[in-house]
């Protein structure tokens, strides 16, 4: 049996009742959770779509991305069914939009252990051992059973997987599947992710270019401010200038040393100038 290709589906049609805010638009280091999930999935599968309700297609958080619009009913099952209907030969890596801790390692593990003969391949919950349907691979063969389940009044994808069976995997990192439902959980996630490494672009000029031996680089760092970043790079390259002799620019504007850096920011340290 030939395996169908896997596409990505980010579920962003939720109501976010307990959060009282759109969970897809929650930001971590200046990036929305929708964009984080989309980029994460894009690193593992070739095509990624955002699952939305019909009334969300113009929403600015979502409108930048390829979308699949719910056609029948609501909830995650409607989203998964719409995807299976839009591309009937594809299997779907389905990701909820409230998993800020989700990692490349967790997706890689899931994809490598995919069982195309089951309706789905899913992690088990660290809390109750039940299937986690919203970080899972759904196979084309599930389409018909999902339609029947929904027609019979079913709306819970977890119950569906319990009833119909799925290939289940123990999570390697239980935190990766922790979701964020309340403002307090969101605050905790911000604090935790602020310490996680992120990619920045650094450009070097003049003396610092010579001392770093390069004019630019993209690097992964745990520093959360330009001050912390300079400390890290000064130790690596042996910069002779102390921080109080420098200014710093972020994204081509002068910046404070204590500004919080965001993913993808471009940082330039400015040694004492000598124009004119």
């Amino acid at each position, binding site marked *: 049996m030939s395996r169908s290709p896997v596409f990505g589906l980010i579920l962003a049609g939720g109501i976010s009742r307990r959060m009282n805010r759109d969970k897809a638009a929650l930001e971590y280091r200046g990036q929305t959770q929708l964009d984080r999930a989309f980029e994460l999935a894009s690193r593992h599968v070739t095509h990624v779509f955002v699952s939305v309700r019909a009334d969300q297609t113009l929403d600015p958080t979502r409108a930048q991305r390829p979308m699949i619009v719910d056609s029948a009913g609501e909830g995650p099952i409607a989203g998964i069914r719409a995807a299976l209907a839009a591309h009937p030969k594809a299997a779907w890596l389905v990701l909820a939009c409230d998993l800020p801790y989700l990692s490349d390692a967790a997706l890689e593990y899931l994809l490598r252990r995919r069982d195309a003969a089951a309706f789905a391949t899913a992690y088990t919950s660290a809390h109750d051992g039940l299937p986690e349907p919203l970080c899972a691979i759904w196979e084309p063969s599930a389409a018909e059973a999902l339609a029947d389940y929904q027609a019979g009044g079913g709306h819970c994808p977890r119950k569906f997987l319990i009833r119909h069976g799925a290939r289940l995997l123990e999570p390697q990192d239980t935190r990766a599947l922790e979701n964020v439902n309340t403002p307090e959980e969101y605050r905790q996630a911000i604090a935790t992710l602020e310490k996680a490494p992120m990619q920045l672009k650094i*450009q070097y*000029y003049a*003396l610092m270019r010579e001392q770093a031996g390069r004019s630019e680089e993209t690097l992964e760092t745990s520093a959360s401010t330009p001050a912390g970043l300079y400390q890290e790079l000064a130790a690596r390259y042996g910069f002779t200038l102390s921080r109080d002799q420098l200014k710093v620019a972020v994204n*081509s504007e002068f910046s404070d040393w204590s500004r919080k850096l965001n993913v993808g920011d471009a940082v*330039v340290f400015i*040694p004492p*100038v000598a*124009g*004119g």
Partner: protein
Amino acid sequence: MNFRFTEGAIDTESARRELQTSSAGGYVSFEGWVRDLNEGQEVTGLEYEAFQELAMKEGDRIVAEALRRFPVKRALCIHRVGSLSLRDMAVWVGVSSVHRGEAFDACRFIIDEVKHRLPIWKKEHYRSGDSGWVNCERCAAAPQHAHAEPEHAEHHHDRVAVSNPK
């Protein structure tokens, strides 16, 4: 854009024409040239390097500030980057206005701010064969060190300036 960079010689004639307007009674310009002596070292040539994206924005802001502060007609600043020889023009500022007083003031304001605010760096090459980034390596704040140890002149770049130029 009232501030720009050029890699070739600054064309002052065409820059001057950009400032002409029939309401202006005159114009003042400043030219910065590469000279042969700096901090007691004989200079043979130099290189300018700029963080152009930020420098152009900040340069534009400086000229806009000058146009707000002084009742002048037009103002323009052009800065050279790359390798320059002695006597080459490194920077040009021009201001046209109805009367001369405010043109002198605005011109002075622009060149002073450009020197202090723009992310532009200058590497000097010396007759000794040494070279150094001005204000970054040679000890501008304590020139007596340079005089105290003339035999170690080639090591001056090991020292670090004490503060940002103000």
